[in-house]
């Protein structure tokens, strides 16, 4: 469903992505990990064209992301994205956050959009928070609203960019629980995260990145068993120490 072929990207003279290739099949959950600055966030933002890339091709559901003729807003509306710092719209209630793009992009009528929002908020365990503003919600609640906002568009795939990195430890679980459920329901997911517990539980594959390149792309068992690259072994030994 998502295919990256030889994707490279430069910021001026600095190369941030170096010949990255990978595929994500329908229903697959791929966890992308690696040290900070390894380019994993940049890579995931290339998938829905939020970050332009300099070389290579990315196709989502057969549509080329880098093609100038591609209707990017339309493509993006079919790919959900969840950000590290939630990025809910602060001037709208939780419900309005979820309704906005349904109405403006999918042209759903208001009743249908609100119904969808209520249903999703209930699924996230946030039914009673529909009319609250983001500032009145905890980080974990905000992130779940953000997930609901993305799901409301009935996406064919979901991209998560470090969805729990900005959360207090006790709130990480409530967000991960939602993501686990989503994975179990068969959603196609690309998740940038350091949560190795999550990766062990639901990932099909783990992609390890370092200095802009994909160093390892392996089945979960293989990755956690014996990662082939030294760099990945070192990384794992460091983050799994405690």
């Amino acid at each position: 469903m998502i295919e990256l072929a030889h994707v490279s990207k430069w910021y001026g003279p600095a190369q941030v992505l170096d010949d990255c290739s990978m595929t994500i099949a329908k229903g697959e959950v791929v966890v992308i990990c690696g040290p900070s600055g390894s380019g994993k966030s940049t890579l995931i933002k290339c998938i829905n064209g939020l970050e332009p890339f300099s070389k290579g091709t990315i196709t989502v559901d057969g549509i080329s992301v880098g093609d100038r003729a591609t209707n990017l807003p339309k493509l993006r509306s079919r790919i959900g994205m969840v950000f590290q710092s939630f990025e809910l719209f602060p001037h709208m209630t939780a419900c309005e956050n979820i309704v906005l793009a349904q109405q403006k992009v999918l042209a759903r009528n208001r009743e249908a959009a609100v119904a969808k929002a209520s249903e999703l908020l209930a699924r996230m365990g946030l039914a009673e928070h529909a009319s609250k503003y983001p500032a009145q919600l905890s980080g974990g609640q905000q992130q779940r609203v953000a997930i609901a906002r993305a799901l409301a568009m009935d996406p064919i795939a979901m991209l998560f960019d470090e969805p729990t990195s900005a959360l207090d430890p006790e709130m990480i679980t409530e967000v991960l629980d939602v993501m686990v459920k989503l994975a179990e329901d068969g959603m196609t997911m690309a998740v940038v995260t350091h949560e190795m517990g999550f990766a062990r539980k639901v990932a099909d594959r783990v992609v390890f990145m370092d200095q802009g390149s994909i160093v390892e792309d392996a089945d979960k068992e293989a990755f956690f068993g014996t990662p082939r690259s030294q760099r990945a072994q070192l990384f794992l030994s460091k983050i799994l120490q405690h």
Partner: protein
Amino acid sequence: MFAGFDFGILWLNAPFLWNGMLLTLQLTLLAVSGGLLLGIVLAVTRLSSIKPLAWLVEGYVNFLRSMPLILVIFWFYTLVPKLIGRPVSGFYSVLIAFVMFEAAYYSEIIRAGISSVRRPQISAAKALGLTNLQSMRYVVLPQAVRNMIPVLLTQSIIMLQDTSLVYVVGLRDFLTSADIVASRDNRPTELYLFVAIVFLVVCFSASRLVNRLRRRYAL
């Protein structure tokens, strides 16, 4: 403490003062709305990717902001009739001067407001499939306006106070009218005190009104 003062003078001259007030309010409202409209256009142009236009606007804004308002009023009073080849009433030449002048300030406030919205908010809007225009309209501008309101209000109050400069082209705004009465009847204390109180009340109510609007619309 007010022994020897005659506040009846205000009542006697009420219609005259009211006419001055009307001119002040009229000028303020027209200049603020015109300045805002032109200011939005200038701000958007300056943020646009058409560089020559952006530079032109930058030049305009910096130029006008370094001029004293009174000089701008003089210019337009002498310039506009020459440009269009026929005399223009003091009111219109002053109004044009105010609009052009205020627009320079408003455009800077609006530009700062738009820039104050965090970049990732735009990413989030785009990730949902909103177009650039829709992101601007539904995500950026509402947040920008909320950030701009206090400064826009301050600028508009300054505008209200600056209307008194129109005396230089012979118009009678509120302060000028009060001044005329004060010197004619030799009652400066009463008149200037009154003017101060009126300005205080108008400005105070304006800021109260804006605060109420902000709460009402959860801006």
